[in-house]
């Protein structure tokens, strides 16, 4: 049962990363990919209407963590206190920029909120990347199952670590590049004209960057946690995830080359999902890994809530998830149907 909840938690987090990744990536890139004025409005229109629906995936993932692994929520949120507060503030600024930026038709007002959107998205990508690195590297758990961590300590990956060290900084940079590539691909798919052209150029360059950095990150992860890779070979799901990465990569490259940007976007989503899935499979069953000698890991087993509660939630969760996908399908269909009709009328 707890294993199933680990899987659900990972699905929610992957959903957040892929969907909000579009928003973050496009937001981070739009200062470069779009000129002020109509072009930037096109970017915001591509990510705007559903940004809060994307962000809800994070809230729902938090809810799943709460219901299934309250001890992990307690330990990690308190331990990552300042990092999470920065994340919250960036989410606030990002949401404000998307929502109020378009409310006043004034160039300076728009320029200001465009800059807020761009900067908060870049910081969000870096923070999320560092968080991912922290999950792999581990945290300085004390004997009582809690920890507190500085923003940085000595930049080593063992002992009394901080949020940032050489490894988590690398994952942060990698995440920024990967999410920007993800956002560029999405913009190439959704935008037209000059924004489309520039997004294609950026997507090419950024995906080349992802291709160059991925081996580096893999080797670094090997250095930090060799045990992860040894266990991984024996887990079939890991192979599925790696296939997803390979398939996604292929779809991205062929999609961009042939101009099939819908396929490239789907490939990009598969790539991110596969990468995160591989990480999730390899760290299982450990949710918080200790970096201090004698620290005890928080695992799927010792950190989950009672069987009854998990059993109740397994009833309502699929219902809610199905309803969620239904809403999204309905709304997208409303927009689609109307969009083609409008275009037809315009010609």
């Amino acid at each position, binding site marked *: 049962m707890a294993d199933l909840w680990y899987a659900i938690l990972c699905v929610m987090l992957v959903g957040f990363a892929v969907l909000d990744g579009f928003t973050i990536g496009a937001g981070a890139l739009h200062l470069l990919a779009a000129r002020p004025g109509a072009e930037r409005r096109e970017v915001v229109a591509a990510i705007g209407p559903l940004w809060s629906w994307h962000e809800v995936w994070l809230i729902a993932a938090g809810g799943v963590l709460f219901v299934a692994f309250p001890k992990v*929520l307690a330990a990690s949120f308190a331990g990552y206190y300042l990092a999470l507060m920065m994340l919250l503030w960036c989410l606030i600024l990002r*949401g404000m920029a998307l929502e109020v930026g378009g409310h006043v038709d004034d160039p300076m007002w728009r320029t200001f909120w465009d800059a807020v959107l761009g900067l908060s998205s870049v910081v969000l990508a870096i923070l999320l990347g560092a968080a991912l690195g922290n999950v792999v590297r581990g945290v300085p758990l004390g004997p009582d199952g809690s920890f507190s961590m500085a923003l940085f300590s000595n930049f080593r990956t063992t002992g009394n670590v901080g949020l940032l060290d050489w490894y988590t900084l690398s994952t942060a940079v990698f995440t920024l590049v990967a999410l920007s590539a993800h956002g560029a691909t999405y913009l190439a798919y959704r935008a037209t004209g000059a924004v489309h052209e520039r997004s294609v150029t950026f997507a090419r360059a950024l995906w080349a960057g992802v291709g160059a950095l991925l081996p580096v990150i893999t080797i670094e992860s090997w250095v930090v946690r060799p045990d992860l890779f040894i266990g991984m070979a024996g887990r079939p799901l890991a192979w599925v995830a790696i296939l997803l990465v390979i398939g996604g990569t292929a779809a991205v490259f062929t999609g961009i080359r042939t101009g099939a940007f819908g396929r490239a976007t789907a490939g990009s989503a598969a790539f991110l999902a596969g990468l995160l899935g591989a990480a999730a499979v390899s760290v299982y069953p450990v949710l918080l890994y200790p970096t201090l000698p004698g620290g005890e890991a928080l695992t799927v087993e010792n950190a989950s*809530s009672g069987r009854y509660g998990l059993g109740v939630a397994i009833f309502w969760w699929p219902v809610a998830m199905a309803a969620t996908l239904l809403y999204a399908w309905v709304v997208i269909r409303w927009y689609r149907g109307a969009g083609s009709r409008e275009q037809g009328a315009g010609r």
Partner: protein
Amino acid sequence: MEDPAFWHRLQFAFTITYHYLFPQLTMGLAPLIVAWKWRGLKTGNPQYNDAARFWARILGLTYALGVVTGVPMEFQFGTNWAGFSRYAGGVIGQTLAMEGMFAFFLESAFIGALIYGEKKLGPRNHFLASIGVAVGSWLSGYFILTTNAFMQYPAGFAVGDDGALRLENVRAYLLNPWAWIQFAHNQVAALVTGSFVVAAVGAFYTLRGVHREQGGLYLRWGTTVALVASLLVAFPTGDQQAKMVARHQEVSLAAMEGRFESGPMAPITLIGQPNVAEKRLDNPIKLPGVLSFLAYGTFHSNVRGLDAFPQDVWPTDIPLLYYSFHVMAGLGSLFGLLMGLAFLQRLRGRLETSRPLLWALMLAFPFPYIANTAGWLTAELGRQPWLVFGLFRTENGISTVVSPGTTLFTLIGFAGLYLVMGLVYLYLIGREISQGPEAAHG
């Protein structure tokens, strides 16, 4: 700085109070927008659609502020209240997760369609989108109030081997009687806020002599809904809520009323100052027997005072609790009077011409925010010194690894950010209102 719990409490209180300024308007406006879309669909009168479109823009901005200030609330359970999350997460995690999964996904999927999609969607789907938003916002209210009801009156749980709580009976937890009453009381209070704001904008337009038709519509709908909601917020919902407190949180009732001594024929206090050091109420004006009657149904019932309880279970901020309760109840009564007056003037056909009344209606809109805030202060201060009433004390709930200085730092950060956001919000709302409903065309 010596008491770390104080800073965690202050940050949570500040961020939740600020956050709730937005959802109370969202939840109050959403049903009105549904009603207007429905009337528009039925009658074909474009006035209703214009009203819905204008208020949907206001709703959209308010919703966005609600989302961005709401995410920190969920996070703070872990960041600032790790002890509480360890203790009760196995229970309250259920409703917090349900809120995200059932309510937020619904609301956030349709809000964009409601605000930007009128032309694309057509009237029927646009009406459905407004229902999606309204149901989502009210559902999230229910899940949050169930969570709060568990903290007020725990139900459906068991204590595990490790001392932490676990869920034992999901029905008892979700159908907690406290939750239903509190939900009813809170939702009509949100309707009070929404309808007062609508009436205030109507009064403003009418006084200015602009947007005549829309202004009149807002005035009529705003004052009618406000009258009904102001009556419902007192009776039966407020009355039932008070009886709930009298039954299950006797010590809180005593503190809310500044009642230091037990006895029958308990009076209700209209005015007075609680003096905790001397354990008495200074300069009171009281109505004898009324508290006994309201709490237990007869004038002779004994209502226990604070003297009946050991001091370590007294609410920690008795004066603030007392004043919050009286501000809420006093304002609630005034709301009924004001809207009753507006109704009388409407019957006489003078609603749109009585300038003093229009001024009063225009300037009245901040007070429901104050009353809602005071009501929540009453609920949460009345729960002290407990985080889960009778089970778990507040000071045990904090994140011990977060130092008071760190909390103060982030509190200041929130305060600064929220100040700027509030200014932006007021500027944009003011701009929408001054541009008027016609500008929302397009």
